[in-house]
């Protein structure tokens, strides 16, 4: 008797296990469904309002950047009572992108997400993003698309269709330790072009200092190529151009200066951090970094007792920088109701008022031209001119390449530059040619 009961029990438990597993396996749709309805009822319970639409917004980065994003979401939720946005932190851009992709494949993507600008192409072409052109045309009055700084719109369009609104956008700028420059008897205005940078470096070297610690960062390399009048990829995105003279010149410049001990090029994963540390500890007088770091750099300079200011990156043939940062995009698998809610939200996040707030809190660019006309920002720039440099530099801004294969090409370029700099037997031309041949193969697909 006992035994038979055991068998029955086993059989029952087995069916339960099997059913549970089967449910899990079959159902991306159902899993996504329960999640969404769960979120909905949660929001409804909180506000006793069943009509409220709940959407999720995923964002990258912590610290001051996160504070600003959370604050803007809070303001949006309080500004109206139809939509509730739940903001969720997802790590850095790479983490965020991987998670959005996985969530999208599982039918559980957030309605709105930050998207690093160079990735817009791949996400849009895979059909993950909602095209915003019709929305922007419908709300042209309120949105004022041409109020966004034209230098920031290059990565908002893919194949002439609008996919994102500029949110926390940046360019690299040059940070200067004015105190160190003065002590070395140099003009504190800083070097305006590559030649002057080299002269500055020779003077600083005599004082036992470096002009600059610069990591092999694709963003800075892009800037130097633009300054030389070149392009990374051809206009149609089918061919690598970084092995042209304009693309090789920056590598040769870095290599020569590094070999003479005029600049320091740290490699490895923490190279960026090493460069920042050298600048903070007054080993190097200059550094390239995102405008997103202005607020933090002002604090560092105060703490370590030196005067700091910012300026354009030095010119070669001309000034030139890529832009960076993220825009806000809407994912494509949403109900019409959710799409409208998401659109309302990203419009709010990119208003003149919002962009002024995030600019002052973090240092990212004010994305709208009208923001620059406000008394608030004019007073801010008068007090802290360091913030204004990146805005002026936008006149020389170029969009970043957006080809699907670009992340892989970035790896090829980075390895090639490091090889050219670290290995005396490899010439910059050889290293870049080799990488370009591989990149061409990737682009041909």
């Amino acid at each position: 008797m006992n035994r038979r009961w055991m068998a029955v029990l086993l059989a029952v438990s087995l069916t339960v296990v099997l059913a549970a597993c089967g449910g899990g396996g079959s159902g991306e749709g159902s899993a996504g469904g329960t999640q969404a309805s769960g979120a909905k009822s949660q929001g409804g319970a909180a506000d006793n309002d069943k009509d409220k639409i709940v959407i999720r917004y995923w964002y990258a980065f912590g610290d001051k950047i996160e504070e600003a994003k959370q604050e803007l979401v809070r303001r949006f939720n309080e500004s109206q009572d139809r939509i509730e946005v739940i903001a969720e932190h997802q790590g850095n851009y790479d983490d965020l992108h991987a998670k959005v992709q996985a969530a999208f494949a599982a039918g559980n993507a957030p309605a709105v997400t930050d998207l690093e600008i160079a990735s817009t192409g791949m996400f849009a072409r895979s059909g993950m993003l909602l095209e915003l052109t019709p929305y922007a045309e419908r709300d042209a009055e309120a949105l004022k698309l041409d109020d966004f700084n034209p230098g920031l719109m290059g990565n908002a369009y893919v194949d002439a269709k609008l996919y994102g609104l500029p949110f926390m956008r940046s360019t690299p700028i040059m940070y200067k330790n004015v105190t160190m420059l003065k002590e070395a008897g140099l003009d504190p205005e800083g070097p305006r072009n590559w030649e002057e940078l080299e002269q500055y470096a020779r003077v600083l070297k005599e004082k036992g200092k470096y002009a600059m610690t610069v990591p092999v960062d694709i963003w800075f390399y892009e800037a130097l190529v633009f300054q030389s009048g070149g392009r990374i990829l051809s206009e149609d995105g089918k061919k690598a151009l970084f092995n042209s003279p304009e693309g090789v010149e920056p590598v040769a410049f870095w290599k020569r200066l590094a070999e003479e001990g005029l600049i320091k090029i740290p490699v490895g994963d923490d190279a960026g951090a090493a460069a920042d540390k050298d600048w903070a500890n007054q080993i190097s007088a200059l550094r390239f970094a995102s405008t997103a770091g202005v607020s933090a750099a002002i604090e560092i300079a105060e703490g370590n007792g030196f005067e700091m200011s910012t300026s354009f990156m030095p010119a070669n043939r001309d000034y030139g920088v890529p832009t960076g940062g993220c825009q806000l995009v809407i994912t494509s698998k949403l109900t019409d109701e959710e799409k409208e809610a998401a659109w309302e939200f990203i419009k709010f996040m990119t208003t003149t008022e919002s962009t002024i707030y995030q600019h002052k809190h973090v240092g990212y660019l004010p994305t709208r031209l009208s923001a620059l006309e406000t008394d608030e920002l004019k007073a801010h720039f008068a007090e802290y001119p360091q913030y204004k440099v990146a805005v002026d530099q936008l006149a020389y801004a170029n969009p970043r390449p957006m080809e699907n294969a670009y992340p892989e090409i970035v790896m090829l370029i980075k390895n090639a530059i490091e090889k050219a700099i670290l290995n005396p037997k490899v010439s910059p031309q050889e290293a870049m040619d080799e990488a370009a041949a591989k990149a061409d193969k990737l682009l041909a697909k």
Partner: protein
Amino acid sequence: MPSILNRLRPYAMVAPALVVFSLFYLYPIGYMIHLSFHEWNFISPVKTYVGLNNYREMLADDTFLQVLRNSALYTVMTVLLATGTALPLAIWLNRKSAFHAFVQGAIFSPHIISLVSISLLWSWLMDPEYGLLNGLLHLFGISPLKWLNDPGTALVSLVIVAVWKSLGYNTLVFIAGLQSIPPELLEAAALDRSKPWTTFRRLILPMLSPTLFFLVIINLIGSFQVFETIAIMTQGGPINSTNTLVYYIYEYGFRFFKIGYASAAGVILLIIVGTLTLIYFRLLSRRVHYR
């Protein structure tokens, strides 16, 4: 009727385990092999069948060959050092005193710390400018190393971390092995006035061989799958000098979104680790020890 139930019972008993096993091991492996013949970016509704193209491309990629070389080099160095230093340590620690117990506990502690914390910790220790290790070298008048920032030393630096982490566990297992050697054998050897080296070579080492073998295989497989330290400390750089198989798979899968290609690399990893495991079971069934 009861006899049928009796016959079914064992299957019913293993069924839950079997279901879990096939769902979480067999199915993913099968799906990975399936994906390795396709081109897919994770989200596009179409998976293009490309036959053996992913494999062909991978074997023609000199980066992949370097990655294989790095993995092999890392594994050999880690296994040799991790077991090679653990054995003398175990012999030294295999006695009962408060001091020895303390040392045993101390060298075991890295084993229970999360690898992420360990990686961050060692990144600081190995910082070329401000790191403690270069400070120590300086004390002895040795010129500073660039550790993780130099393609020549980066891989070895990672090996050091791995050995530091696994040393305690290996030592503990060796001590357990040493204590399972019957004391009468050692007494007999002592009565025969066997020299310590002879006792070690002719008695202790053969009796320890199953333990040694177990550790070598476990370390071998673990080292081939190294990921965390690389993801946190070097991200495969500088110039791919620390790029190993699992990190390569991760990079292609989740940063370049080439799932098919990453799956093909996954199949290669499966073959390598599978072969090692097979050798392990083969040799184990032949029995390497004497009892």
